């Protein structure tokens, strides 16, 4: 687990985790960040942020903001972020969607 990721929104810290790889939705497309990445500052568009844990990718929806990468630390500052509900059953997904 080489990268430490922190996603911060105005109301709270949305996400705080360790991962090997993270995909950020920047204004010029999706970029993947691996360990020992050069220091980077980038604008983020609203999109899907994915990070990898034990072989599987966990997505979350983020709104626009910034990301800063330095010393194997990824800090994502966005206006908002949403959890993603996953399920293999289409009925369950529809039900959750209608409940929203």
């Amino acid at each position, binding site marked *: 687990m080489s990268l430490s990721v922190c996603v911060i929104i105005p109301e709270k810290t949305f996400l705080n985790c360790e991962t090997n790889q993270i995909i950020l939705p920047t204004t010029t497309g999706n970029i993947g960040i691996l360990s020992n990445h050069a220091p980077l500052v980038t604008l983020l568009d609203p999109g899907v942020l994915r990070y990898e844990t034990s072989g599987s990718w966990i997505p979350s929806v983020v709104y626009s903001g910034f990301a*800063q990468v330095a010393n194997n630390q990824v800090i994502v500052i966005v206006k908002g972020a949403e959890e993603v509900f996953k399920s293999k059953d289409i009925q369950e997904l529809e039900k959750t969607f209608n409940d929203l």
Partner: protein
Amino acid sequence: VEGERGLFNRRLLHTYCQFKGGGGCHVVKMLSFLPRSLLNGAVQTRAFATEKEIAMRISATKNIKKITSSMKMVSASKLRGDQTRLDAAKAFGTWTSTLGTKVASFEDIVHGLVEEEKSVFVGGKKNVVIALTSDKGLCGGVNSAIARGIRGLLGKYGDSEDVSVVVVGEKGRSQLRRMVAPRMYAAATDVAAPLSFAFASELAEKVLTDFSAEKEGTLGAVHVAYNKFKSAIAYVPSVATVTPFAAAGRGETLATFEFEQPEAKETVLHNLFEYYLATELYYGMMEAATSEQSSRMQAMENASKNAGELIDKLTLLYNRARQARITTELIEIISGASALD
């Protein structure tokens, strides 16, 4: 004389004196008839409050005490909510510390306890002071503290500088309107509480477009004045200074970082600065709201306590008046009865 209003409007003035002498209690009743016309020019003599008047005052004060203590409880519960929001916003607010926000209390700046003793204002460029105050009153000294701090700051360092003041909150607006009238630029009042990040970003955008419209570099610094929440009984009026990012040159911001969109570096820095300012504003608003609630709680607590003391004093007066009345009635009855004998 009836019919002639105003001239001979007679009132019966009773004056009761009760004094203790030796082993007993003497009650002396003096009657004085004074036409009202004689009173108007001369010294105003007030009738000694009757029992009923004191009773009315007591019940009014009891109502006030009920209101202030319920306001205190409402403030206490709102304070809890504001404190949770503030703690949650702390994480959001700390990322800006890497970008160089300077926070100092008004006390330190104006009284020169900061070592360099230099002005927070950037010389030769525009400075904007954003004051965060409340819309509602009855909150103790929070708003006057900010207004006083700004006035002192402008008085000490702001004479030759181009400083504009933006106010959030009705109470601050009315005070600063009188104190620093020529510099007032805009005011945002009656914004629905709790203040959101959306409002903070709107305000940041407005300030940046209005003050650095012509070109980058005209805006020297933005100063956010708010009450920093120290504890439930203490707050510190402070000002956080935010300076725009330099895209190149000696003070280049984030010089060690690469930009994913290098051709748009200026835009990225501009957007980042707007976001940074919005964050500082949002964090300041959270602190200001928490300080306001704690101050209101304290003010209402003091008001209830004072009302309680006043009720005790009035009750003693009431009892004295009641006893005087009873004694008078007894004397009348007894002297009436003895006259028959």
